[in-house]
């Protein structure tokens, strides 16, 4: 594993750049553990200071040092995105593989639910959840809800791959080797859907963070928890852009873009690594 990693770093530029970007953001997010200021305190520094040596990312109109504030925000947002991505991957893999492999009425029932989840407008539901849960709607709760709403699309993709695998000879071989359906799905078919899982995980993160930002900007999340979304909410609340405190908006956006670019590059290069086709070619035959 480690050698693979080394190889990837040495020979795959995309991987290296991606890793660099993502590590930067992750390290940045982890710095929040060493923040000299509590996350929610306001008016701890002079407000509205542009980026400088003293305040690398400037300060916002709430008197917070943006460097530390954003490191909290990225920690929470990253955690949120990862939880959503992981949970919804678990659901979509389970549903997709089961639906594709088991077929028949299982498939029909699962896809019926899938269709519902696809057609349901998510936004009203999220807002309703906010009104029901209010400040209990923290990062984790929201992540779980988003995960429950965000699997349908990818489950269908996974299903279509699994559907093809179902009729492959090695699947039948596995059946007659006495493997249980669970084992076949998880050990035989899963590797084939991993590339999809990776690339959709990435898309899912963008999607969920986008939603978080949307909700936060409208004030429909717990705005006391620093996230990228609430950072933008507060910036908006203080008319940051028209007032000229551009760094309050531009810096988180740049960091966000860096993070996704990094994730994207990682996904692409890892994909190539785990894609059965290219893996076979690499192993030589």
């Amino acid at each position: 594993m480690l050698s693979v990693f080394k190889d990837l770093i040495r020979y795959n530029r995309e991987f290296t750049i991606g890793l660099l970007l993502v590590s930067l953001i992750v390290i940045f997010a982890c710095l929040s553990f060493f923040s000299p200021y509590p996350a929610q305190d306001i008016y701890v520094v002079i407000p509205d200071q542009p980026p400088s040596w003293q305040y690398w990312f400037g300060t916002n109109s709430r008197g917070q040092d943006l460097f530390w504030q954003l490191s909290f925000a990225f920690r929470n947002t990253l955690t949120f995105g990862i939880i959503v991505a992981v949970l919804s991957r678990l659901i979509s893999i389970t549903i997709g593989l089961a639906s594709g492999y088991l077929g028949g009425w299982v498939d029909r029932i699962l896809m019926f639910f899938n269709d519902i989840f696809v057609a349901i407008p998510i936004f009203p539901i999220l807002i309703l959840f906010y009104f029901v849960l209010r400040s209990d709607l923290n990062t984790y709760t929201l992540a779980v809800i988003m995960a429950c709403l965000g699997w349908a699309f990818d489950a269908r993709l996974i299903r279509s791959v699994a559907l093809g695998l179902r009729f492959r000879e090695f699947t039948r071989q596995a059946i007659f080797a006495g493997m249980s359906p669970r084992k076949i799905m998880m050990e035989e078919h899963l590797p084939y859907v991993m590339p999809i899982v990776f690339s959709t995980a990435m898309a899912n993160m963008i999607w969920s963070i986008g939603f978080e930002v949307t909700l936060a900007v409208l004030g429909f999340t717990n705005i006391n928890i620093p996230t990228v979304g609430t950072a933008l909410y507060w910036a908006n609340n203080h008319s940051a852009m028209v007032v000229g405190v551009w760094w309050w908006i531009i810096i988180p956006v740049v960091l966000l873009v860096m993070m996704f670019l990094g994730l994207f590059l990682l996904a692409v290069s890892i994909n190539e690594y785990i894609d059965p086709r290219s893996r076979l070619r690499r192993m030589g035959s």
Partner: protein
Amino acid sequence: MDTVLDVKGLKAYYLMKYFGISREVRAVDDITMSIRRNEIYGIAGESSSGKTSLIKVLAAAMRPPLEVVDGSVRYHFNGEEIDPTTASKEDLKRIRWKHLSYIMQGSMSVLNPVRRIERTFADFAKEPLGLSGPAFRERVEQHLSSLKLPPSVLRSYPHELSGGMRQRVTIGLATVCHPEFIIADEPTTALDVVVQKEVLSMIREIQQKMGSSVVFVTHDMSVHANMADRIGIIYAGRLVEEGPTRQMFFAPKHPYTAHLVASLPRIGDTTQRPALEGKPPNLADPPPGCRFHPRCPLAIDKCRTDVPPLETVDTDHRTACWRWQDVRPLDGAPTGKMEAQL
């Protein structure tokens, strides 16, 4: 003699780079051969021996990572000489389908699944034929009927046709412009015997009618026996023997050929047939010397170190074996004398 194609010392490798480690698969390794006008040349060999790779070079259908590293390929069409490995895009376009056409391996997937057959025909042949509208359509229908296909297939989508029909459509596509040179890669694999025979006889008919040359590939020796005028045997990227069909079958001069022609049982004959032992060589790391030596019953020390040259042993018959004189037909090999029983 009237040669249409000259291949000299052709080397075509798959050059691959994975995370900095470069590997080459020597799929075509130093092949020299020539094809004459109005003949059917069969290429045989086990799978992964480089047949398709060679064909791709000949058909100017190379895609990275396949690259020609050495040698030349020359076509002679109407006194014009053209090397498909170096020719410009325009030159290639000029000869394509009019002079040179190609039936790709896997006829199941070479037709655009969302396009009606007639549109595909128009895409492929309208320009080279220089016909338009009804004239073109008539020409296509006529051609299809010679392939025993009703005109209604033109309105169909590929998935609506059976495997045999699709194969015939592909052959129709490749031959509708009456090219001088047809390259066919396993045109009958995956067809049942009845259909296979039909398709083969059709290709032959067209070839004879147009006087074109055909190079075709299959590993089914009985197809070669009935189709080809000459046969080339490829083993691990090398041409190991080449000669007129009868000689190849009845008097092979390479142990691998001898094995190939003898390996298949025949109805009415229950002699125990031995299988070729060992594993086909890895083209990324082929054995030194004669590449067949690890599996060869006749192998001597020399075979392990020295590459045997392709020597002419008879008219039109060349072989690359240090011990060709010792090669004898194996037990159960066809003799040409034994009438197919009953």
